[in-house]
């Protein structure tokens, strides 16, 4: 009975902490704009088929090639006469999917390795960190490129490639956060009453490290969207005719002087996506910063 | 009160300081009067949040720029009103007329500059005689020696010193220009107990040798007893009791808050069975009670206390002053 009251109290406390963070986040104008944009992009990606049917992204109308924006084609048409608006709307699925899945994937690997290294330290930590040093000695884009080069350019391999280049940074971050948490007394206290390592990591270490992890993951989404677009742009990622934004720009390059709107819209879409997650990440960092409390 | 006699070094009248943020206004200091003569030492005692540090920062005009603001009152140093001084003249006062020692020596020293250079900077900033490099270095060594550090260590960086040594460096830096007034904000709180005693003894010795006036801020009566001639007890931004060290520390007549503070110090001599800490907490500085600010926690609370702010009454024929209704018209103990 007493225990359940305690749990309830803890839950209430957690709840009010979340509320407090939200209150401070809400006051940050830039962060709210970012959140609005991010929600918009998510909605567009989720309801892409409702907004405009998928077949409009593939319908080629020969006599409508490279036509500027009009009421019928708000973003104009591409070199094959396909509707750019439809292609951008459906392209949001690629960017969002790539950004979120690679970030979450590297987060999972990062949590496993980072928490283990930070918590257990010693030999394991040493080996993993040296290994990461090697991975980090190759600049991230190059590492992704090498992976794509070996495996071949397609969506799945792009995901693998970007995740690999992103994992080392995530592991390092989580390790360092875990290290600062592990040093604190309540971990010793938990150990002293015999909690298992796994329990300590899951119940005490990770929840206390959650702030920086959330911020990092949010920012990562933006970076991953940019990387993916860049790789697709040089033909090493998602391949045309898929309406990925980077790929759209890649095929638009040839017509950039005749039809600059082919650059404007996909580019702005990428910019908006990256900007929104960056803004949200920034806002979260400020809202979670204990020094800025009150 | 006029700008008064030659002997007065620092005069604070009716000082009010507020910290303003988007969310709230904190009333940190609410009408403080302090008068300090040359060569005298004053202890400023009170709990965390009583406004002691704020008073100190006001004297140097170093309140946090965007939030802190003196809303009322005057501060005069050597008879000059510093509230209206241009920044350039204020800089000349800082470090030369008034210098300050901060609580945590580790963070008060710049980690990437050698301690010698940090002391030298204080000297150079106020150098009127055009000292040569060699002379400055000599002075630095002399200062280090004075606080008991081998002069050779001047090329070391702060992290190479222990906490007590760091505080000595900070003190030598503060004394480098022979200031008239030294403000020490919790100078020993961050130090080990044994080191505390050493540093306090050294401060006392230097104060006597150099004749520097001193304001020692502390939550610890022991520190103040060790170093001060006069003691002011602060509570919620007001001085509730003021007197000579003897009167405040050893006397029998006190503000109820002071009594409470004594009650929360463990004593080896007294036969009291247990400590009697003050009930309750300091009032919320954003919403202070209208009458006596101590009233909500006061064991002697009367009706008048919650309604009307008490005056300060002179007790006996010494310096003792207490701000409490208990000592008002005929209600005295």
């Amino acid at each position, binding site marked *: 009975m007493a225990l359940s009251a305690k749990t309830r109290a803890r839950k209430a406390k957690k709840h009010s902490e979340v509320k407090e963070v939200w209150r401070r986040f809400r006051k940050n104008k*830039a962060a709210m704009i970012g959140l609005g944009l991010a929600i918009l992009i998510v909605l567009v990606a989720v309801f892409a088929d409702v907004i405009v049917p998928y077949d409009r992204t593939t319908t080629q109308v020969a006599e409508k090639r490279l036509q500027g924006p009009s009421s019928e084609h708000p973003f104009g048409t591409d070199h094959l006469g396909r509707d750019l608006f439809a292609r951008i709307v459906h392209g949001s699925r690629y960017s969002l999917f790539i950004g979120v899945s690679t970030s979450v994937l590297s987060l999972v690997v990062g949590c496993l390795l980072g928490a283990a290294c930070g918590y257990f330290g010693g030999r394991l930590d040493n080996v993993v960190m*040296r*290994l990461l*040093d*090697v*991975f980090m*000695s*190759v*600049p*991230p*884009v*190059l590492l992704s*490129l*090498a992976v794509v*080069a*070996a495996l*071949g350019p397609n969506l799945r391999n792009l995901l693998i490639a970007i995740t690999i280049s992103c994992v080392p940074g995530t592991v390092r971050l989580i390790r360092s956060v875990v290290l600062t948490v592990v040093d604190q007394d309540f971990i010793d206290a938990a150990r002293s009453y015999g909690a298992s390592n796994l329990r300590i990591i899951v119940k005490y270490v990770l929840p206390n490290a959650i702030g920086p992890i959330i911020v990092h993951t949010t920012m990562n989404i933006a970076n991953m969207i*940019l990387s993916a*677009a*860049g*790789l697709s*742009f*040089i*033909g*090493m990622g998602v391949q045309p005719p898929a309406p990925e934004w980077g790929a759209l*720009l890649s095929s638009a*390059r040839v017509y*950039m002087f005749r039809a*600059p709107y082919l650059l404007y819209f996909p*580019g702005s879409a990428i*910019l908006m996506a*990256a*900007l929104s997650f*960056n*803004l949200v990440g*920034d806002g979260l960092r400020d809202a979670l910063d204990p020094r800025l409390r009150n | 009160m006029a700008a008064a006699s030659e002997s007065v070094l620092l005069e604070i009248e009716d000082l009010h300081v507020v910290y303003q943020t988007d969310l709230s206004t904190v009333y940190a200091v609410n009408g403080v009067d302090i008068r300090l003569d040359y060569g005298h030492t004053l202890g400023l005692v009170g709990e965390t949040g009583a406004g002691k540090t704020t008073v100190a920062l006001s004297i*140097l005009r*170093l309140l946090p720029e965007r939030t802190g603001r003196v809303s009322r009152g005057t501060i005069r140093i050597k008879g000059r009103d510093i509230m209206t001084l241009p920044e350039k003249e204020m*800089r000349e*006062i*800082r*470090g*030369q007329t008034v*210098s*300050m020692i*901060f609580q*945590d020596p580790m963070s*008060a020293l*710049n*980690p*990437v*500059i*050698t301690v010698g250079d940090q002391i030298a*900077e*204080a000297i150079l*900033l*106020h150098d009127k005689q055009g000292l040569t490099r060699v002379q400055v270095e000599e002075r630095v060594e002399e200062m280090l020696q004075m606080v008991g550090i081998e002069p050779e260590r001047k090329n070391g*960086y702060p*992290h190479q010193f222990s906490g007590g040594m760091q505080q000595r460096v900070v003190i030598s*830096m503060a004394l480098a220009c022979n200031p008239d007034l030294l403000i020490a904000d919790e100078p020993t709180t961050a130090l080990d107990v044994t080191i505390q005693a050493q540093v306090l003894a050294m401060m006392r010795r230097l104060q006597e040798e150099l004749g520097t006036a001193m304001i020692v801020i502390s939550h610890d009566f022991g520190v103040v007893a060790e170093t001060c001639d006069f003691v002011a007890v602060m509570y919620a931004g007001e001085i509730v009791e003021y007197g000579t060290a003897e009167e405040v520390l050893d006397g029998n007549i006190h503000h109820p808050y002071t009594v409470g503070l004594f009650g929360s110090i463990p004593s080896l001599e007294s036969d009291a069975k247990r400590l009697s800490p003050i009930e309750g907490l300091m009032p919320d500085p954003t919403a202070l009670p209208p009458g006596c600010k101590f009233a909500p926690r006061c064991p002697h609370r009367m009706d008048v206390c919650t309604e009307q702010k008490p005056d300060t009454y002179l007790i006996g024929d010494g310096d003792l002053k207490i701000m409490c209704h208990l000592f008002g018209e005929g209600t005295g103990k």
Partner: protein
Amino acid sequence: MYRYVLRRLLLTIPVILGAIFLVFTIMSLTPGDPGTLILGMTADKEDIEALNRELGYDKPFLVRFFNYLADIIFRFDFGDSYRTRTPVFQEIFQRFPNTFYLAVGSMALSSILGISLGILSAVRQYSFIDTFFTVMAMFFAAIPGFWLGLMLMLVFSLRLGWLPSSGVDSWRCFILPTATLSAGGAAGLMRLTRSTMLETIRQDYIRTARAKGASETTVIWKHALKNALLPVITSMGMSFGASLGGAIIIETVFGMPGLGTYIVTSIRQKDVPAVSAATLLLSVLFCLIMLVVDLLYAFLNPRIKARYTS
């Protein structure tokens, strides 16, 4: 101090060896054998097998790796291109300067811009200048580099005709790519400098300096800057890594004959030795820059300096 330099130099060697192993491993995942890749699917089976034997492809993976490593170390031989059958190093050597100038130039530009604007913003916190540059940095951190490059090309080359849109024939060809590539880095460094500077200004020792009577200029330049720049220097190394990666994409945008375009075309042609060699060279360059950055950091940070001098 020189003990630290030595230590750090020695630590770089296993990392570079590791990088070679990593790249070799990844590239050996490429499906198909070199014989087929060189001679084509239609070639005679026996010819293919003979060529594979000649290239040592019939040997186990680790043996191949050590042969590769030995060739690099003792003969500076990164293998022959599958496409041209000539040593890849020749072509890489010709192209390397273009990538080097682009990456180093943009790192220099982004550092200068980023750090100075960061300081300016922090010192004038909440002012119009601060808001303006913070918002700009926010945008430039989110702009895809290749798109910015295309837009700049559209405006300055195609519309205004001020600058060449491609090639490497004169220094003017480098202006647009360098500007493009440095934008993201400058934005990142500006944001970092601003926040570390603001953090530093809040420190107690800054208050101490003010209490000594130091002027605001002294406080900023003497007391705050050196402390604030320490984390910035660390991230300059990573920023250079991003520059190198970005350079590959930007070279494609501006059609520059550098290592980036070389890598991209080599990937298309499944020219494994070429991709490996170019990737390795850029990684080694990155390691060396990280080394320089670490040394600079140690030099500025008395904690590390003291540990090795005393």
